[in-house]
């Protein structure tokens, strides 16, 4: 049977994805250009037995999102750069305490208040390193409205499976554009729920990992009383000042993600097999790059597009295939070279990375990329 097709806005598709994944709690704070997510879920969640709350600030929104998850609900919050900065404190708490949830960052321009209604991609490093301390990170970068939906479902799955916050790192262009979306039927997309303990509550250790590095997580109120703290803690959840144990636990958390690279990292490689020039682009800029690649191919230039749907962990393994193989690598992005640094780290100079960095609140025009392709170094 033909699937239902809807004409959706990117932010609307995030909501569809969240509800499909089983999200039943949203706590947020209004901020352009993410606000539609809150507006839509405020209307939709109660119909599905879920609840919405608008908190007093972004710190509270992040805190309440984690609280909702601890009480057993799949929880979501959405924001943009300035809000993301404020969320960082409790996002770090979410990492250390291993609480699943999804944070949508609809990126806009500039540090501080910046360019509220314009697009940007300058929160890549913030997503990875915005909170203090070391922690694993998963961030997804959709490029289409369909991917806004599908990747939101995947973000929830990864959050639940690996018991950690996951960031959907989208931008104003994808968030606000509209295109046709094939609506998944129940069962079309995998939906993963967190592992919950089945042991006797007396024996429950909230941070004792199973073979996959992830410990089952009990809902508060489900008969497994335990302690959660933002202090480094032992498998029983209680704080410990033992630095060696703290290090071992943080390495274990990092390995949850590192050891499952193949499951987490998704990359779209278009026309890369014979490519002499590789474009590395994500999010809305990948759309510009795709257009530019088509134009260049029409002129017989061997160029391919490497488009990560998972930006964190960085797709090192996928990208390494092109080390020494392609003659040029071009990284267009709406920031001053954040992702380019990572591409450089992976390729180690073979070849050198050429950037197209633009922070003028305009999407990068395909012609700009085409000119770079044709213009040579």
């Amino acid at each position, binding site marked *: 049977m033909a699937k239902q*097709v*809807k*004409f959706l806005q990117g932010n609307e598709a995030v909501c569809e994805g969240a509800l499909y994944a089983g999200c039943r709690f949203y706590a947020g704070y209004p901020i352009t250009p993410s606000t539609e997510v809150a507006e839509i879920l405020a209307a939709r969640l109660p119909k599905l037995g879920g609840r919405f709350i608008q908190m007093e600030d972004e710190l509270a929104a992040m805190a309440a999102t984690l609280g909702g998850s601890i009480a057993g609900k799949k929880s979501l919050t959405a924001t943009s750069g300035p809000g993301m900065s404020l969320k960082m404190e409790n996002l770090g708490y979410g990492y250390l305490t291993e609480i699943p949830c999804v944070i949508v960052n609809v990126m806009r321009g500039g540090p501080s208040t910046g360019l*509220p*209604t314009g697009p940007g991609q300058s929160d890549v490093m913030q997503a990875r390193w915005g909170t203090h301390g070391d922690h694993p990170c998963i961030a997804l970068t959709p490029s289409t409205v369909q991917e806004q939906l599908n990747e939101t479902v995947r973000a929830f799955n990864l959050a639940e499976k690996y018991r950690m916050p996951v960031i959907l790192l989208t931008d104003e*262009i994808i968030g*606000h*554009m*509209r*295109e*046709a979306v094939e609506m998944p039927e129940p069962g079309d997309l995998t939906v993963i729920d967190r592992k919950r303990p089945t042991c006797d509550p007396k024996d429950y250790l909230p941070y004792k990992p199973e073979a996959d590095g992830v410990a089952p997580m009990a809902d508060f109120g489900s008969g497994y009383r335990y302690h959660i703290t933002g202090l480094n803690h032992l498998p029983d959840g209680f704080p410990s000042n033992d630095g060696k144990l703290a290090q071992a636990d943080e390495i274990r958390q990092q390995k949850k993600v590192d050891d499952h690279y193949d499951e987490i990292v998704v990359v779209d490689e278009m026309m890369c097999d014979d490519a002499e020039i590789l474009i590395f682009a994500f999010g*809305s800029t990948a*759309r*510009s790059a*795709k*257009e530019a690649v*088509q134009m260049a191919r029409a002129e017989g230039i061997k160029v391919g597009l490497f488009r990560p749907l998972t930006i964190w962990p960085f797709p090192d393994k996928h990208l390494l295939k092109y080390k020494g193989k392609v003659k040029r690598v071009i990284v267009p992005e709406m920031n001053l070279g954040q992702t380019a640094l990572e591409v450089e780290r992976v390729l180690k100079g073979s070849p050198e990375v050429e950037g197209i960095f633009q922070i003028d609140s305009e*999407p990068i*025009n*395909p*012609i700009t990329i085409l000119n770079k392709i044709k213009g040579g170094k």
Partner: protein
Amino acid sequence: MARHQIRLSGSGGQGMITAGIILAAGASVLEGKKAIQSQSYGPEARGGASKAEVIISDEEIYYPKVMAPDVLVALTQEAADKYSKDLVDGGILILDDLMVKTAPKGNWKVYMMPIIRTAAEKVGKAMVANVVTLGALNEICGFVKPETLEKAVLSRVPKGTEELNKNAINAGIELAKAAKAL
């Protein structure tokens, strides 16, 4: 059909974004074409120059923004001046004769039409100027079948306003027919 890049502009609150959504949704959901709608906006909720962009194509659309429009609708002078700059040679320019006193100069086919007056006086509600626009635009450019446009409009308007909106579409079609005959 090749790719059409359409820009619908006016002042915030005139419903140009809604018009863009309706057109793109009709083309994609109802006719299976590829279509994207996007917009740019400033901090003000009402007033100010606003534009919606629609791309309709038989093939995949990657870059979601209009690079150079081949059709521009402008319901205010400010929008006409600001957004006509990159209209392609031979492009189509649709203007409202009440709000736009001076048509921008260029090698374009210009349709100066009483869109807002028709909405207010003939259809009876100035609010439906955007639907009148859609009727006229589609009659001139033939992006989608007339029945598609009607279906797309009716699926996005409040219940109880169906007749009003049908009348608005038809009034737009009539305006276009008259303008084409000139």
